[in-house]
């Protein structure tokens, strides 16, 4: 196909921004804050820059493949996805929309990161995403994915995931 005018096609950035995190499918990579940059030229070539949440996050490969297939489907001829590490991702990069989507799916969103260099911040309490109680306790600092810890609500007795502040 030939590239006509940019207005006939959704811009690459908008398409890339709709790709979901495979392990947190209620959050887009834009809302997660890992979509760093999208550039396109008039030849239909796209260059996407993303950053991993954790060094070993296995979702990043799937995200790369999803970006390539989604953008190619939209007519872009050549899609490059670049991984960058600096500046390091922080849970503060989550958007407000991302936080709301997490909470709605039963995952307590992270609080603000206190200090990158200090000890692991003491989280006084995390609000239960199901019943809003603050009477909760951490049952494990590590959860179902690298970015989450496990909590239990004492009020409604439900266990839930908490997106860690890092």
């Amino acid at each position, binding site marked *: 196909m030939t590239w006509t005018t940019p207005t006939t096609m959704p811009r690459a950035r908008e398409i890339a921004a709709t790709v979901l995190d495979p392990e947190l499918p209620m959050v887009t990579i834009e809302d997660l804050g890992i979509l760093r940059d999208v550039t396109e030229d008039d030849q239909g070539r796209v260059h996407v820059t993303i950053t*991993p949440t*954790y*060094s*070993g*996050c*296995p979702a990043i490969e799937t995200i790369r493949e999803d970006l390539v297939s989604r953008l190619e489907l939209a007519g872009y001829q050549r899609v490059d996805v*670049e*991984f*960058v*590490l*600096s*500046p*390091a*991702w922080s849970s503060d990069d989550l958007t407000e929309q991302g936080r709301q989507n997490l909470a709605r799916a039963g995952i307590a969103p992270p609080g603000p990161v206190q200090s*990158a*260099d200090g*000890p*692991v911040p003491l989280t006084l309490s995390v609000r239960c995403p199901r019943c809003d109680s603050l009477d909760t306790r951490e*049952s*494990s*600092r*590590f*959860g*179902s994915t*690298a970015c989450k810890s*496990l909590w239990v609500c004492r009020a409604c007795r439900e266990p839930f995931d908490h997106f860690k502040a*890092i």
Partner: protein
Amino acid sequence: MNTPLNTPLNTPLNTALNTALFGYTLALADDALVSAQRMGWWISRAPELEEDVALANIGLDQLGQARHLLTYAGELEGDGRSEDDLAYLRDDREFRNVQLVERPMTDFGVAMARLLVLATYQLHLYRALAVSDGAPLSGVAAKAVKEVTYHVDHASRWVLRLGDGTEQSHARMQAALDAEWPFVHELFTPCHPSLAGLVPDPAALRESVLADVRRVVTEATLVVPEVSPALGGGRRGLHTEHLGYLLAEMQHLHRSNPGAIW
């Protein structure tokens, strides 16, 4: 992976420096990679389900760090070796990890004692690497600092709980520390002199790392063992027999099926 780098690669002037930096990077990478493999042993064997998950996550963090470091090492070397080539196609004598991480880790006390020492060391090293913006490895290190902070915290909690627990848990935690301690000193092997000022020298971290570990050990009512250091030599490619078995398991699939990918 893109890592900020201000050292020109593959220019004749910098060949010696690149070789030294390659060795330095490989040491960090192999510590993380071999430790990750040992952590994986614990999946389904930890004392409780949450601990299975925790140790798997810690191993995954270490594996991720190793992947970034190996990729970078391959770029420094300039021979086109990928992270997989370096992880799967080197023999034990080419590995640069400390002997601390390669020995079997089938006792939970040993796993926590070792993680406390290793993660504290990594935290200090990565922190020092991360602060120099644009320096080699600063990007990988800044990311890893956040992760190993959690590892130190996790190991510290267990050492406190077991050390200051029952008579039996105290005795076993002390025995674990005694077993690991001869291998602690190798972590502080000086790096190549040509790297002075470019990257932190592990030898310079000895006091601050050991002070942090000692604080946890003492609070856990345990004592820092007074034992002679093991012979060491991992940084020069000299390893215990255990590394060969570990690599056989880790590399088997890739070597039997060259080029296999998930």
